[in-house]
């Protein structure tokens, strides 16, 4: 049933996109806050590879805060400072245009994601019903 992992990957990506949208909303809301630095989430490829930038369990007595390998979708995505930011006079590095473009990207990717899940679901139902 290895191909059924598609649902897992899709929901993981949907969650990542939701978190990215949260970070974008924070940036836009703080567009006129002095000293605020624009943030972004780590790229999805790093989530998919399981390379979390959090703490790793290297000893059996460590607390497993990353949730374990079986439930990778529940881990919080790490945020980083947006590397492309230009700081203005008040110390704020948010560009509204860039944030809105990112938000459009999130919407496009989310639309693709839900459509793929829909198509896969249809295929699954087709195989169950036998045509």
């Amino acid at each position, binding site marked *: 049933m290895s191909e059924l992992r598609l649902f897992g990957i899709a929901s993981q990506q949907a969650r990542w996109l*939701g978190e990215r*949208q*949260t970070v974008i*909303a924070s940036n836009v*809301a*703080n567009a*006129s806050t*002095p000293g605020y630095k624009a943030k972004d989430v780590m790229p999805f490829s790093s989530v998919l590879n399981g390379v979390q930038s959090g703490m790793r369990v290297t000893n059996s007595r460590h607390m497993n805060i990353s949730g374990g390998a079986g439930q990778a979708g529940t881990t919080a995505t790490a945020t980083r400072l947006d590397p492309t930011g230009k700081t203005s006079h008040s110390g704020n590095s948010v560009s509204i245009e860039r944030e*809105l473009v990112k938000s459009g990207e999130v919407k496009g990717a989310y639309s693709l994601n839900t459509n793929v899940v829909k198509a896969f679901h*249809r295929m699954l139902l087709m195989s169950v019903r036998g045509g």
Partner: protein
Amino acid sequence: MIDPLKAPGKIATAGMSAQSARLLVISENIANAQSVGATSGADPYSRKTISFKSEVDRLSGATMVKVAQYGIDRSPFKVEQDPGNPAADKDGNVKLPNVNLMVEMADMREANRVYQANLQVFRQTRELVSMTIDLMRT
């Protein structure tokens, strides 16, 4: 951790209310651009300022925005010679508010722009939610 699709709506709402507070201050300044003092030689209306700060919401872990403080602009008043004015001092000088309409208008345009951006994020998030709900109807 709150649902990642609920948090953006809350953050955008916080952003919009912060910008409305800013618009309120700007409209006060514009409305009082000619308000002189009540008695002879009294100080006129002083321009008000507002500043924001980012705040991490403990429930959701999201970065919200709120009003940090309201302040008063201490820059010097404009002085005009107008002996007929009731607020004129004994030399006939009237102190006028330190409100520059050009600055207020520019500030208003910026507040408007940030408000619209927040609104756009709100709409976009709503579309994400409805796309998710649409998964159920196949």
